[in-house]
């Protein structure tokens, strides 16, 4: 077992955080993953194959294929304590079971004794690049079967392919430099708020780094990147889930605040400006980082575009008024 894998095994909180990063739990079925498990089932000539993620207390199937259908509803969500794949992620290696009805660990399991009638199982961990086993890729059948080391090798390599596909999706959501959401992912979060339209107070803060071009011009782009990274880290220290931060432009960030009215959002903007005033970026000891901000609380029924524009206009006003300040957006005009 390598060092990273051992770390993952001992660190359940880190493992769950890694799983959450992929934002995959409870998502809709997707053709890409359904196709992969269908191929695996076919390659192994076995009754079922699945991509299973192990949450805190449950196993959830992202994709499952069996002989009668592409979805294996009975296993879509099951208690973690009953999940074969939980053994797989704990053991760090492939789990090979020739006949579960003869295996004391599983003989009484309802997937063995019940209508699913699982006998044989081969599972390999889905391991993140930083060593966390977030789930397992598995094949299982209703007949006893002796899996070979070649089978294990094939399934392990399929698991790596599944993970590289999941990594790509992560790349789509997370800005590579700062670690906050990409513009697209951030906008998706705003769209979700608009679609739900619960009436709970929700605010958007748009921030723009003051004189950022000057930092790039005087110290070079690596220095500019360092400033962006440190500012994003400072924001992340103040903003807790379910709130989110996105990089919505080169040096522009957005903060989505759930349950925050305009006053609360202005308070957050003020605390952030105070924190940035203390910020020291390595290599730029005398450089003071300031931001301008526009703050807008969403009105019920307001579109995402209108909400964003109000925050953007407030940000523009903050810039126009001399920078290093936060401006509250004018309320939505009712026509």
């Amino acid at each position, binding site marked *: 077992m390598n060092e990273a894998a051992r770390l993952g095994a001992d660190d359940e909180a880190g493992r769950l955080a890694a799983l959450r990063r992929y934002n995959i739990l409870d998502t809709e079925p997707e*053709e*890409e993953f359904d*196709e*992969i498990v269908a*191929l695996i089932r*076919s*390659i192994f000539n076995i009754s079922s194959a699945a991509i299973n993620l192990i949450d805190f207390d449950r196993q959830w199937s992202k994709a499952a294929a069996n002989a009668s259908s592409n979805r294996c509803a009975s296993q879509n969500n099951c208690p973690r304590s009953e999940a074969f794949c939980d053994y797989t992620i704990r053991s760090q290696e492939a789990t090979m079971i020739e006949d579960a009805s003869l295996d004391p660990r599983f003989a009484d399991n309802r997937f063995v004794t019940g209508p699913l009638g699982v006998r044989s199982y081969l599972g390999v961990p889905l391991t993140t690049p930083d060593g966390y086993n977030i789930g397992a890729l598995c094949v299982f059948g209703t007949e006893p079967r002796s899996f*070979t080391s*070649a*089978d294990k*090798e*094939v399934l*392990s*390599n*399929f698991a*790596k*392919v599944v993970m*590289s*596909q999941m*990594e*790509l*999706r992560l*790349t*789509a959501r997370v800005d*590579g430099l700062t670690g906050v959401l*990409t*513009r*697209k*992912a951030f906008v998706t979060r705003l769209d979700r708020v608009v679609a739900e339209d619960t009436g709970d107070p929700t605010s958007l803060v748009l921030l723009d780094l003051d004189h950022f071009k000057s930092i790039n011009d005087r110290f070079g782009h690596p220095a500019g990147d360092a400033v962006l990274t440190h500012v994003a880290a400072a924001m992340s220290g103040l903003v807790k889930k379910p709130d989110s931060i996105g990089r919505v432009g080169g040096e522009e960030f957005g903060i989505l605040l759930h349950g925050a009215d305009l006053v609360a959002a202005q308070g957050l903007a003020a605390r952030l400006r105070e924190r940035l005033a203390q910020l020291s970026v390595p290599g730029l000891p005398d450089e003071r980082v300031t931001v301008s901000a526009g703050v807008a609380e969403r009105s019920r029924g307001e579109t995402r575009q209108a909400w964003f524009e109000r925050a953007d206009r407030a940000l523009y006003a903050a810039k126009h008024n001399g920078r290093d300040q936060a401006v509250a957006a004018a309320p939505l005009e009712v026509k």
Partner: protein
Amino acid sequence: MEPAQLVAEELKRGTLGERELTADLQQALERHCSNLVTLVQSLHASGRDRDAIRELVAVMLRSYEDDLIQVLGKDE
């Protein structure tokens, strides 16, 4: 056909065309292809049918490319 050659051929047939990839996406694609090559090697070693392997590589690459194109369109 060698696994690397098989993956390279299927990649050429793909839908990415002349799209330019950023360095991190290029690295991600290369990592994925490397994983596919290893998978093909293990499938060959386990005696799986060669036509089925080619079909599998094609399906898995198309699936990855679809996701990649989504990523490329992220700021549109």
